[in-house]
Every structure is written in C-alpha cells, then in structure tokens.
C-alpha cells in the first residue's frame, strides 16, 4: 500500500502510466475509434496531402489516406512488436543469465563472452544486418530485434544472480539440500525480478523506437502497413512542405516511448532505493 501511495505521488511516473494506459487503450479499441476506416489502407488520390483539418485531424498522406486513422491502427502493431520482442528477449536472456550467474565453469564463461560480443556492437547495426539477411518484413525485423536484445537481460540477470549466489539464504537452502532447479527458479528468479521488470518496461519504449527506425530504414514493415516508422520514411520526399505526414507518426512514437521511459524510471525508483535520486 505504501508503495502504491509513493508511486501515486511520483508525477512523471504517473504521467508515464497514463500515457501507457492511453496507448494500450488505443491498441485495443483503436479500430473502433478510427474516423475514416476506409481510408486506412485504400488510397484516395483526389485527397492527396490535405493539411490537418476538422475532417482529417492529422491531414492526409501521399496516397490520400487519413493519417490520424493510420496512426491509431499502427498503435496495435507497434505494441505487439514491442511486447513480442521483449518477451522473446526475456525468454532467452533471463535463463541464460541466471544459469551463467549461478554456476562457474566454461559454459558460464562462454555464455557471458557471447553476451559481451553482442553488447560490443550497437544493437541497431546488428539488428539491421540480421534483418537484411532474413529478408524484408516485420517478422524478420522482430526476429532481429529479439536476437539482439536478449544480451541486455542476460547481463542484468547475471550480475544480480552473482550477487545473490553467495547470500546467506541461498547458502542456507543449499545446506537444507534444495535442488539447483528449486534454488534458481523459486528463489533466485523472484529476487532478480525487479530489475527485469524495470528493464522490460524501458525496453518496450526502446524497442518501439528501434522498430520504427528499422521501418524507416526499409528493413521492417512493408507498405501498406500503417507502421509509424514506415509512414515517416514514405513522407520523407515531401518534407518540409507536407510536414504533417511525418510529424504526427513521429509524435506518436515520441509519446509512446516517453510514456514507457517515465514509467520505467518510476518503477526503478520504487524498486531500488540505491538508484534513488532526488528529483525536484
């Protein structure tokens, strides 16, 4: 209860929480809220590049599609991609990190050196390379992102597990004869959960940004997907005259990422008093 009250007083975190709720709401109910359902995918060339108006709040793009409707519909895609990528990255990174952190020996060493190799190269470059190899499309972009994001989880979990490995309560469990599986999954995992949750929240925003970037660079979503990054890429040629075609999908990315980051930061402050800093 105290934790919840503390969180309610954290204004930036609450703003982040509100943004996330809105974004999730749009992702779930977006298709019902769309003002011009027929102008999401179908083009209407007579209406090309209409500036924002009462009818088309965000204006129309180069094919006369309603940008507001497309941003709404794109939300679902962005969230799904982020969730999937983060979930897969957790599924790969966390078990590896726990294993490598708890045991010693060449296998643990190998896992961590591979992790280091991944972390030594900027994620976006690695993801670009993998996505290029796998071929164009959202699926390959997601695969590329998940395959390059797990080392972050692995590192975090590894460090936490190393710290816990010599803690008294783990030693006590070993003394009682608890199996390694029990110690790792029933005791170490819940104790490393907080940093995982924080990283996952921030990672959601980060992944949305990276997905948009991949879409912009042309290795992610393909037309006519309402992907935000793709929308910005498509409108690039018409800048700066048709500013609205790039601005509104860009703002959508900005707000969503901001929401996850603010929320994640708030969570971090709640969970880890060591990282607490005074914010005036």
């Amino acid at each position: 209860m105290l934790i919840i009250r503390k969180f309610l007083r954290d204004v930036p975190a609450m703003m982040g929480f509100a943004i996330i709720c809105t974004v999730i709401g749009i992702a779930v109910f977006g298709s019902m809220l769309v003002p011009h359902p027929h102008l999401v995918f179908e083009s209407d060339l007579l209406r090309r590049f209409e500036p924002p108006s009462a009818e088309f709040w965000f204006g129309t793009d180069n094919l006369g599609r309603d940008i507001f409707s497309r941003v709404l519909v794109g939300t679902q895609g962005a969230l799904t991609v982020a969730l999937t990528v983060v979930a897969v990255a957790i599924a790969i990174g966390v078990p590896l990190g726990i294993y490598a952190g708890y045991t010693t020996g060449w296998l643990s060493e190998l896992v961590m050196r591979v992790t280091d190799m991944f972390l030594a190269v900027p994620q976006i470059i690695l993801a670009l390379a993998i996505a290029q190899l796998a071929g164009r499309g959202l699926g390959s972009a997601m695969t590329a992102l998940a395959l390059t994001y797990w080392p972050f989880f692995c590192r975090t979990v590894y460090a936490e597990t190393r710290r816990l490995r010599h803690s008294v309560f783990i030693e006590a469990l070993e003394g009682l004869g608890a199996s390694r599986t029990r110690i790792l999954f029933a005791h170490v995992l819940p104790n490393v959960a907080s940093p995982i949750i924080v990283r996952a929240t921030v990672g959601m925003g980060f992944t949305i940004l990276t997905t948009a970037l991949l879409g912009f660079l042309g290795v992610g979503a393909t037309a006519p997907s309402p992907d935000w990054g793709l929308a910005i890429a498509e409108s690039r040629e018409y800048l700066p005259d048709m500013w609205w075609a790039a601005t509104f999908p860009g703002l959508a990315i900005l707000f969503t990422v901001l929401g996850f980051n603010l929320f994640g930061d708030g969570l971090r402050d709640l969970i880890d008093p060591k990282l607490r800093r005074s914010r005036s």
Partner: protein
Amino acid sequence: MKSGPILSLENVVSVYGGGRSWLGRAQPEVRAVDGVTFDVQEGEALALVGESGCGKTTLAKTVLGLLRERSGNIRLDGKLVSGLTPQQARLARMTIQYVHQDPGAALDPWWTIGHTLDETLRIHAVSDRAERARRIEEMLSAVGLDSSFLRRYPHELSGGQQRRIGLARILILHPRIVILDEPTSGLDLSVQATVLGLFDELRHQFGLTYIFVSHDLSVVRRMCDRVAIMYLGRVVELGPTEPIFRAPVHSYTRALLSASPSLTPGQLDGMPSLRDDPPSPSAVPSGCGFRTRCALADRVCSAHRPALEAVVDDAANGHMAACHHWQDGLFSSADGSLAMHGVGAQ
C-alpha cells in the same frame, strides 16, 4: 550404553583458494582448517571457540558438507562420509544441520515463514500437505511461537524470533547434530537468556547433539560440556568445559579467557592478554602457529608443530593441549607468578 562417537573428525584439512582462474594468476592457498581431529559424543554440546578468522565457521561448513575437505576423514556414526562431492556429502550428512549466524538473512525475503517451513519439508519429500502442516505446527510450538507467524515475512520478526524460526526450520527435519553458528550474537541479554534456555530445552526434548561455534565465553561456559579452542585452523586445546575454564593450559586459551570480562575480581589476574592481530592464515608461522604471540615460545616451537596430547594432570577426562611448554605455563599459573611478561600482561 555409551557407544562410539556420533561424529568423528580425523586430521581434517580445508583449503580456500588455490588453483588459478582462466588467464589469471595462481591464487595463494589458505589452509583455513589445518588438521583438526576430535570426536563428538552423542548428546553432548561441544563448543568451537576462537578469534574471528580462526576457521571455526569453515570447520562448521566442512563438517556440514558445504565445503569439500582437502584431506582427512569425517565419520558420522562410524560411517565414512568424507571424500564425496559436495552434493553427495550433503546428502550423506543430512542428520547434521546448521543454524546460521544471522538467521534472518537465511530466510528468502520474498517468502513468508510458513512458505519457507513448508518448502523445507517439500525438499525432503514430505508430500502430504496435512502431514507438513502438522509438523510445522508442532515445531512452531516447540520453539515457542504460534501459528500467526506463518503469515509473516522475515523482516517482520525480531532477532529472537528469527533465531527461533531458524531453529524450527532445521529441527523440522529431525536432525541429530545441530551446528549453531554464533547463536547469541546480536541479541540483547534478556533475549539471549531465553534463547539459550530454549536451546537447552530442545536439546533434551529431541535428543540433539550441539556444536556451538562461538566466541562468547560466558555462553560457552553455561551451555557446553566440552570446549575446543581453535587458533589459525588448528585445535590448540580440547577438553571438558570446567577444567579448561578453571585451569587453562595453552597460553592462547589463557589469553582468551583473560580477555573475557569476569564478575569475580582477581580470578583471572596474572593471565596474559593478547597483543597484535593473529598472523594471516595464508602465512601461518612454522611450527606452532601461536609462537609469534606467545611468551613461552622458543626454538622448539618454531621447528616443530606441537601435537594435541593429553594434559597429564587431567588426562582422565580428556583434557588435551597442543603446546611444547604447557607444563611451564601450568606451573607458573599454579605459582601465581607472572610467567608471561612479554605478552603484554598488565
């Protein structure tokens, strides 16, 4: 009906470090337990006493099987249980259990007390839920707590309650030997007295054998039948509590006793106090480990390591000491004169 000892150690050596890490330098070896031999009889309470870093806890963990002994034999009920891998050793020695120095930290902060106790039984394959609940209930009342504690988290318990839970957690497995690591540290005196009373009561109720790891001499004197004094990984004096407290033979024991406050004025007059810190366990002096701080030390002490041998006057009850000059020390203390000026005696 006195049969053989329930636990017997024979020249046990336990080493930390050594070996080399990948691409790293070879690390120096630390012989934390260096050739310890003693027996523990069923039902007795044996104290392991010594300064911090003398290897008490390492010895306890070696006996428990959490650390693998480098050499030597450990027999439990006459059966050899040493020389196994840590997992096997722990299994073979399940009748030995350990209560941590900080029993609060030994509990998973995320789990309630009830959940933790339940888990202990589950680890030991007690699959019947009702049976587990019954045993938990029984054990809680044995350590003087009620079932409302089952829903609490470790940080919601006081020091004394944590100790009781720590005991309940292992007694629930029906051990025969319980190793208590600094069982009274961090408790205030009134709680200490209650907890010690509880130890005594449980020992009789469950027929336990205690190994007390402690440096609180008053507690040792009150609770234990026999005392083993350790210095730098070796047992330097071993024997029944009263003779050792009344007439210590090894100069280290004498110094240790004089360092503990006493209510009887003059009782410990003339006993030396220790200067300096003990030498690093990674660079133990040759011969007798205590010679660098001992006033009786001479060339024999640096050349030969003294064996643990019976003290002649007191041999019948198993009083033993590892010192080349114990007779000199005994003589001077009986004489009442200060034989150990050099050791910073007041």
